[in-house]
């Protein structure tokens, strides 16, 4: 699982790199446009320790941001699933906020939250929560008639139960999206660091861009990819655990 994820990432990365290098040699671009292999290797050697620490820092925030965004999406998804005016309103509000690219909202966020950790977290959560929200909304607004009927008939239906039933019936979709949204949490954190510029790999990318150093960016992308592969493998493993805990083994014989 983990090893497969990692070597699959390595293939993707190598392919991307090959594409760039191919372009470099085909178009005869100099090292300052696209660095050659030896320069990339040299850069890797110089910065990898520092960048790895930065990436870990970023990953930590991303994990927290993802947790926050899961909570947020669940809350909004649960309220927004209702077909009432209020439910609809919450949905519209949640959608609208998302339409604003973070770069436009950033000045306002800085005014409201100041800088530092909270801002990074908030931006990461905002970027990552939307796909989660969409899925939670989709899942939560669709009744599972054959299961819910009894509880409705007997006046036992509470919103918690409704949410639990629908979540359980769509567990697979939900775990897919949670595992998938990890990448967005990471991207969100990096963007936050990029524009707020205080720490993490996003900040290092900012500096590399400022110095127009594509080599460093390639190293950063590499480290981000690796750490994300590990994180996602962990999440998938956790997803399997959840499935097993709820004993979701599908009908049919188990060999």
């Amino acid at each position: 699982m983990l090893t497969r994820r990692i070597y699959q990432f390595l293939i993707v990365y190598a392919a991307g790199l090959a594409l760039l290098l191919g372009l470099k040699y085909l178009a005869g671009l100099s090292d300052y446009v696209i660095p050659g292999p030896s320069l990339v290797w040299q850069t890797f050697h110089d910065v990898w320790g520092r960048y790895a620490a930065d990436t870990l820092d970023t990953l930590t925030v991303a994990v927290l941001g993802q947790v926050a965004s899961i909570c947020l999406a669940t809350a909004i998804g649960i309220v927004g699933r209702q077909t009432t005016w209020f439910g609809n309103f919450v949905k519209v509000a949640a959608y609208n906020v998302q339409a604003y690219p973070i770069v436009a909202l950033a000045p306002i966020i800085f005014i409201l939250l100041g800088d530092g950790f909270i801002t990074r977290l908030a931006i990461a959560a905002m970027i990552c929560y939307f796909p989660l929200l969409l899925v939670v909304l989709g899942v939560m607004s669709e009744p599972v008639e054959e299961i819910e009927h009894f509880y409705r008939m007997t006046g036992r239906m509470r919103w918690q139960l409704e949410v639990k039933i629908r979540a359980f019936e769509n567990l697979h979709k939900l775990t897919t999206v949670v595992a998938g949204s990890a990448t967005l949490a990471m991207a969100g954190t990096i963007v936050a660091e990029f524009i707020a510029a205080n720490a993490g790999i996003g900040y290092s990318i900012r500096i590399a861009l400022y110095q127009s150093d594509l080599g460093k960016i390639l190293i950063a992308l590499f480290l981000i990819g690796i750490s994300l592969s590990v994180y996602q493998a962990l999440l998938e493993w956790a997803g399997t655990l959840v499935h097993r805990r709820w004993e979701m083994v599908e009908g049919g014989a188990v060999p």
Partner: protein
Amino acid sequence: GAEPVVYRLKWLQNSSTVGDLYADVHGFFAARGLSVVVKPGGPERDAIKELELGHSHFGVASADQVIRAAAKGAPVVVIAQIFQVNPLQWIYRSNRPPIDALAQLKGLTIGITYGGNDETIMRTVLAKAGLDESDITLLSVRYDFTPFYRGRADLWPIYRNSQGIVIANRMAQSGEPVRFFNPADFGVHFVANSVVVHQRLIDTRPDLVHRFRQALLQGWQAALDEKNEARALETIARFDADTPPDLMARQLQVTRKLVRPTPDFAVGRLDVEAWRQTEEIMRARGLIPRAVDVVSRLYRPGAP
């Protein structure tokens, strides 16, 4: 104990902020009873807003930010002007003839950041040269240098003392030496970064402002002093891990010239004439609706 103070820079911590860092690391602030947190800035950071919101006590802002803020009633005061020569300049390849006269700009493709300082400056330069937009080609600048690298632009805006050194070095290694076009050489003096404070702090804690300013300028003075060069470089290196030592030394050298044009120059002097010109330029370009008398925003030590 020491009084806590937050100081927000405009940009990254590197050779451009050597004095700020030096003052902190080498105890100039502490000597005046201040415990200063020097925070790096960023593209979305605005020190003037932070002053008003109370997030910071002192900050670094560009002259156009100061003038715009003043135009909107922000009680901001400039206590020191670090850069005497604006480091925002244009890079071009040495294989074209050096630009000695503004008329030579005719027909070139020039990168500008729409909405940015460099747009204002370049348009002023062009007006001075008697060129209008049809005589040149303007190219919108973004985060990366690709259009310049690939020859689609002749001139590209750059921070002379930080980016400029790194990129010039990288291009030189590929056998393409470069030169810089400095508008100040042609009489366009657009003020760059300055240290600002909120009027409130001057009113309530004049001593604090005074102590901070003293410490900061002494820090700069010391940092730029040739005999402290090793210590200065060592200080920068603590905050800027991304610049190789040899380039950092050259960055420091260029910074020195921009901040302290002559060896006996008193760092931080407010160049009233340049400020006046900056305001005029901004008015002429319609960037502020009315005169703000920016000179009245310049701090006069000793004034109440």
